[in-house]
């Protein structure tokens, strides 16, 4: 057997050698390891580092002959399909948009929009599937996004650092505000947060005059801040809104009803239970009615039903809920 083992091991070494050679050849063809960049400044060089590193833009995009991804549009000049590099392309598209809408829209607005709201303009022949770059796992911060904008604008366009950083247009400012708010909420995606809201919250809460009325109106919830919203989701009993306290009503037969006191008139009260059922109880039948500040009608196990991503998405969505200005 020892002789056999001595014969088999050279065979194993040949196989492993081939395996190593394949790894070497492919790495030689496609490039080495992908290292995330450290903190960057707002410059084309900083943006380039993010593009090919932490931002993972190369996963879907290429720049001319650099990179091999084709899931998203090539950002360089490439064949007949992409006669212009990204900077010049952005200027052309911004011009088209300005003419179409009759309002100023700059190339920087276009590039920033493509990251803040990728679905706003989808290049013909590609799917609306770009990842939210300011949400996990990519989680770019505003500085890093500005750097990527500078890099993309430097590709054949007129690089205007003032428009990117120190004096952005109002449209760009809006997108920056959206990115900042979402990134602050753990980097959630507000668009997906809306879906989580619909699935978990809309039956009981009102938002922009739509939804249920069991819980407080959330139309202006962002004004209460991230910490309040976070606690309200995870431990609803700790952040009860006035007027939405939990009442425990015990009638003379000992039956207990728990819920919101949604109506209190002479002779009777309405208690709205967590499932939305309304129970009307005559005051004459009530033995005891009290507020229980240790309980909330809102389910306290929402966190268990959510993934981290759901949670961050809904936080970022709620952080954007502000009442509409009066005209």
């Amino acid at each position, binding site marked *: 057997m020892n002789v056999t083992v001595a014969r*088999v091991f050279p065979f194993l070494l040949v*196989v492993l050698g081939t395996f190593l050679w394949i790894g070497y050849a492919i790495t030689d063809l496609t490039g080495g390891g992908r290292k995330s960049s450290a903190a960057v400044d707002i410059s084309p060089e900083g943006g380039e580092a993010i593009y090919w590193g932490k931002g993972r833009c190369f996963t879907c995009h290429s720049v001319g002959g650099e990179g091999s991804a084709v899931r998203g549009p090539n950002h360089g000049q490439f064949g*007949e399909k992409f006669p212009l590099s990204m900077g010049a392309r952005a200027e052309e598209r911004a011009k088209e948009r300005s003419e179409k809408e009759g309002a100023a829209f700059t190339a920087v607005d276009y590039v920033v929009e493509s990251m803040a709201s990728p679905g706003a303009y989808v290049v013909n022949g590609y799917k609306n599937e770009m990842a939210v770059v300011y949400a996990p796992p990519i989680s770019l911060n505003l500085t890093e996004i500005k750097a990527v904008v500078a890099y993309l604008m430097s590709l054949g366009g007129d690089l205007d650092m003032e428009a990117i950083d120190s004096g952005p247009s109002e449209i760009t400012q809006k997108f920056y505000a959206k990115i900042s*708010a979402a990134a602050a909420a753990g980097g959630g995606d507000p668009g997906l947060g809306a879906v989580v809201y619909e699935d978990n919250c809309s039956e009981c809460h009102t938002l*922009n005059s739509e*939804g249920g009325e069991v819980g407080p109106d959330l139309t202006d919830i962002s004004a209460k801040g991230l910490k309040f919203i*976070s606690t309200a989701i995870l431990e609803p009993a700790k952040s009860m809104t006035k007027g939405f306290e939990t009442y425990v009503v015990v009638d003379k037969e000992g039956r207990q009803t728990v819920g919101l006191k949604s109506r209190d008139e002479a002779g009777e009260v309405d208690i709205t239970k967590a499932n939305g059922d309304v129970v009307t109880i005559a005051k004459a039948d009530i033995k005891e009615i009290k507020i229980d500040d240790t309980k909330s009608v809102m389910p306290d196990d929402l966190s*268990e039903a959510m993934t981290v991503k759901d949670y961050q998405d809904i936080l970022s969505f709620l952080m954007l809920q502000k009442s509409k200005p009066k005209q």
Partner: protein
Amino acid sequence: MKVGTRKMVRQLQSGLTGVSNGVVAKRCLAALTVLGFAIAATPAFALEENVYRQFLGIDSRRLIWFLAQMHLFFGAFVLGVPLFAVIIEVIGWNNKDPKFDKLAYEFTSLLSVAYATTAALGGLLAFALFTLYPTFMGYMAGIFKDVMFMYALLFFGETFALYLYYYGWNWLKSDKPFSPTMQRLFKSLGLVVAAFGLVFAFGLIGPDMRVDTRWFILLLYIAPTAVGLLIIKDLKSSHIFIGILLNVFGTAIMQLANSWAGFMMSPTGVDSEGTFVGTVWQAFENILATPIAIHRMLGNMAFGGLVAGSYAAVKFISAKTPEEKAHYDWMGYISNFVAIAALIPLPFAGYYLGREVYSTSAVMGNNMMGGDFSWTFIIQAMLVGSLFLISNYYLWSGMTRIPGAQRYYKFIKYILLAVIVSFAIWLTPHNLPLSSQEVGEMGGSQYHPMLKYLGLMPAKNAVVNLIILATFFSFLLYRRGNMHDAVSIRDQGKGARITIIVVGFAAIALVAQYAVTMLNMDPADLDLPADRAEFIRMIGYLLVFQCVVGLIAIVLALFDRGKLGQALYLSVTAFNVTIFLGVWGFVVMEKASPVLRNVAVSQFLQLISCLILVSVIDVFLFKRAKSLGELQWGKMTVRSQYALLLLTFIITMNMGLMGFIRSGLRGDWHIFGVMRDTSEWAYTPSNFVMTQQVGGAVLLFMIGCAFMFWLGGISSNKTED
């Protein structure tokens, strides 16, 4: 999604257009205020400094990677071998054939050294993790402390079961029946467990869980335990029950450990400060935990089979007598058979896992198939394609020891052609890194005008199915090599007919249930407009057609036209899954891409149904058929044994490679979206680094195997003495 939400989503997607300038300025101010507040409340986990340490200046990540890989190699072997050792023991017990019992014992004898090594490596890995990544491990231990204790306790169970199973082999071999009372007691216990399983299956017991987790627990823990108790009637059957318990403990250990790996990719129940607010069950049953467990389970079985096969190959090559050669030839054949049986469903388990990864995060999904790991998948396709090709070669070599198999040699070249063409298509990338000049020569496109289609999922799904069908066809030829001709099924009595009908209907039901799903599915469930329903319905109609052909095949088999029935069902399946759905997949991809996953599921179900139905007909078609001569075990070429060894090397490399992909998908996150890797090693290594790392681990594992085989040899010599 309700209308209101859609509106909100649209508002979000379109930004805040149409708002006056003054309002914008106020909003920006408000947003900045909120931001200021928010930064003060920025999640602590994002800011907390993650502590990293080094041992002797070694790159900690590569050290952990290496140790984890070694632990997994040995662990996979230890978990994989008992799965089929017990099955082989049951075959021997049922047929009263001591040859199978001896083989099962020989397989088990390889385990004891591997088990101790696995435990030692596991301890080393745990120490390395806790000392080199203290913050990360502190966080994980905080969440999984209960699971970790359970993991340790299960080890006691597995250790006890393994040593009792191995060392008690001769002690528990008597077939002297227990007293009727004792037998009734075990049967009653078995019935209680079975009843519990039934209640559990319908979700009346246990926490809320995914359907796949429920079935995993039911099929791998509850059902085997119930069956094990029901069959106990003497010491030998008690020994089999211990073997079943060994597998239950081993699988549970694997599932617990998988939950940690799954949590790192798809964490649940964590708040914005990284504090765990869910239940242990939710952390344990995270989205990817069960898909990983299913994939590993099958992978371990194939791996265990092939490592045991390499033992047989080495023993065959060094055998001195014809008897020894015959024994190890047979052992190698059984090992390869086990491996192929596990390899066939493995691509589908991988597809399921990949789908769940994509559902968890599109970024991870894109990175897997189109990002950092797209070329790693090309290497993986080379390895998996080689596994099937070499497995086929081994079967064809095996036909030389079968008198009469020469009749089927003529088919081999066609099977080889199908496997090679499929292999080539499987490893064709969608796009290639090209120079500008090369792009210009291809008309300004990064895609090759023709090859680009072969790089897409529909083509790859089609050829994976064809490779599996071709391998199955090889096996059928091998099986009937020395059979004179088919026998009459009608003459085999009711039992044969009932078995064909029951198993055949079960196979058809697999397809039929999905046909019903496809014919009733609302396109809105896949976020598709109503006019895309035709793409879903077409799959339904095709499956109905498949069911009808299946029924015809059963009827033909019952009327002694089994070969025709088999040919019909095999041909229709090959046409449906490879040609029709291969082409239809491209249409679906263009017009209704979410339906593509349903196409893949339908291909899998048709294929599995075909394997089941054709196999059951084949069993009765050649039951007690006139033999053209006994199998001449031992009359195998040495070359074929090197093929068996090569299979082991390849599957081991492939396991390491797949581990690299699965773990690397998280990018620079220890726990995806929760805890970022802020170490200097936070990057995705190149494929060359991967081959170095995996190659080194494979080499060391193989040296470990040689040591195990040597010890196994000493043990078997002692037994023979």
